[in-house]
């Protein structure tokens, strides 16, 4: 009994810092934000209250819902694009190169994270602008000038800048850990190499592929930098709407409503995705 109690003490001793940290800097602010969503703003000053005004205003506002749909659509598009574009790269790295090459490739895929995301997004402005690199190249073949800056495509490029290397890394790791005899067994039973990708490799790596996509979705859904600097803020995504709300008329409670809706959406999607990833039959 004493032995067990001592073990309990040590367990709690080492858990305590993390628990305190999470409580102070995650649970408390989150709870505060939730509480704040019921406050009121009077004469540009927040006053504590318990009113549903903000919720009614935001949820009844068409522009909020179109922004929600737009943000969701962009994040879904980024997730699909990143997952589909990353797959051939990850497949090659997992099955077609030596272990050494794979290690180097994974290392190089981490390097983009060494520079600030903001700096990389600014670099894209030069490439995407009307007098930028892509437009100039299109000019050589008689097209353009065309500016991809301040378009949804610009935003998507930014989202992919943020998440693509991560998706490739996660996909590569999950594909490389597939039992190779499963692939041989598929060939052995008359499954062509291309069909094996869809019949065996993707199902076998399902969890990793879904988690990779989920990361892309989460990063894109909440991102502020790309829709602002590459998408031109029009139409606004939810993150831009949060900033706008706080700037115009000190509407922190309305921003809190948007934030709470975003968090609940992400929770629901992440939960569903993970549940689907680990779903087993029989």
């Amino acid at each position, binding site marked *: 009994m004493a032995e067990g109690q001592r073990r309990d003490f040590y367990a709690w001793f080492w858990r305590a810092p993390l628990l305190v940290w999470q409580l102070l800097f995650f649970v408390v602010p989150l709870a505060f934000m939730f509480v704040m969503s019921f406050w009121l703003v009077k004469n540009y000053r927040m006053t504590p209250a318990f009113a549903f005004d903000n919720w009614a205003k935001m949820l009844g506002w068409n522009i909020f819902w179109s922004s929600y749909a737009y943000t969701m659509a962009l994040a879904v598009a980024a997730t699909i694009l990143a997952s589909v574009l990353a797959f051939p790269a990850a497949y090659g790295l997992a099955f077609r190169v030596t272990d050494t090459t794979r290690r180097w490739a994974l290392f190089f895929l981490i390097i983009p994270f060494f520079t600030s995301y903001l700096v990389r997004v600014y670099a894209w402005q030069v490439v995407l602008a009307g007098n930028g690199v892509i437009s100039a190249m299109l000019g050589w073949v008689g097209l353009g000038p065309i500016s991809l800056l301040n378009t949804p495509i610009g935003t998507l490029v930014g989202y992919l800048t943020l998440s693509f290397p991560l998706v490739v890394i996660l996909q590569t790791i999950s594909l490389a850990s597939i*039992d190779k005899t499963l692939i041989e067994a598929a060939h052995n039973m008359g499954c062509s190499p291309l069909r094996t990708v869809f019949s*065996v490799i993707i199902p*076998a790596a399902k969890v990793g592929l879904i988690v990779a996509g989920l990361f892309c979705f989460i990063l894109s859904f909440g991102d502020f930098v790309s829709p602002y600097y590459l998408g031109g803020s029009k139409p606004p995504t939810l993150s831009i709407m949060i900033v706008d709300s706080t700037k115009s008329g000190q509407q922190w409670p309305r921003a809190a409503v948007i934030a709470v809706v975003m968090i609940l959406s992400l929770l629901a999607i992440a939960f569903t995705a993970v549940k689907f990833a680990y779903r087993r039959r029989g």
Partner: protein
Amino acid sequence: MTQSLVVFDKVEKRFADFTAVKPTSFEIAQGEFLAIMGPSGCGKTTTLRMLAGLEAPTGGEIRFEGKVMNDVKPHERDTPMVWQSLALFPFLNARENVEFGLKMRGMEAATRKKKALDWLDRLGIGQFAERNVAKLSGGQRQRVALARALVTEPKILLLDEPLSALDAHLVIRMQSVLTKLQKELGITFVYVTHSQSEAFAMADRVIIMAQGEIAQIGKAKDIYRAPANKFVAEFVGRNNIFEGTVKANTSGSVQVETRLGTFVVPTAAASTARTGDPLSFVVAADLVQVSTKKPAAENVVECQLLSEQFMGTTVTLFLEAADGSEIKVQIGQRELETIDLTHGGRLYASWPSSRAHVLAG
């Protein structure tokens, strides 16, 4: 031998830094149960994988029903395999695993479902058809793997150490399942194993491989009674190997001088031996007799009893001869009771000359 289904014609497999299979030729008959046996790294699995197309030979030709297979892709062959790890698809249930090969052949869903269920029933696991394969026992998974490989009604089934992960009592059960299936279906089984008991219990013919070469090919009985060389004699185990030189070769008998004394071996096998030639022979452990009194016969070795090992109704005695070499004797339990045994006690091992088998080379 009936018509050959598979021909290996000087087939060779080199990897960058070593040769897995040296140029090797053999044939597999229609409906034969062939075991390929050998220590790890002997090339047995590579040989099997070349037959399935999972490794490309670097020399020679593999023919299947007369057709050269070297450039045929694995998925275009009909050489299903049962893997050591079973390689069942974890994301499919038992029935879907069995259906896989049929689906790839474009069979319609209802037909393939019925076929898969028939096979699962035949192997006695019909009630687990819709169960996740991870939730099946080792023996049940084994049967799913077998059903999955056989459902396409192939002419040949390749098995790569399929029983090595099972408990001993299950191994015996699965052995009889396998031999029964093979007889009923009348198809060719090629069975790779490192286990002598599995190979000898099931196979019509056994290939023993060593260092990428065939050391011996033949019926289990022949390999056991007449090992072709010292490697086989040692690998098969229950053999006593004697090395010496020819002392005299008279018309009636060949006398061999060894460190343990002079022994007589059958003339026929050593007729060309001349005095002074090196000569080795083996005497299988179960052909050696023991007694506490010195028998008045040729081929007697005086020994001490070191230990005994009981295996069912037989017992193996480990004796030590005067020069420290070991002599193995396998006798029945009943026979053992008639001998007065004490550890360290003096014993005489003896055998008739006709039981000695002269090794080539």
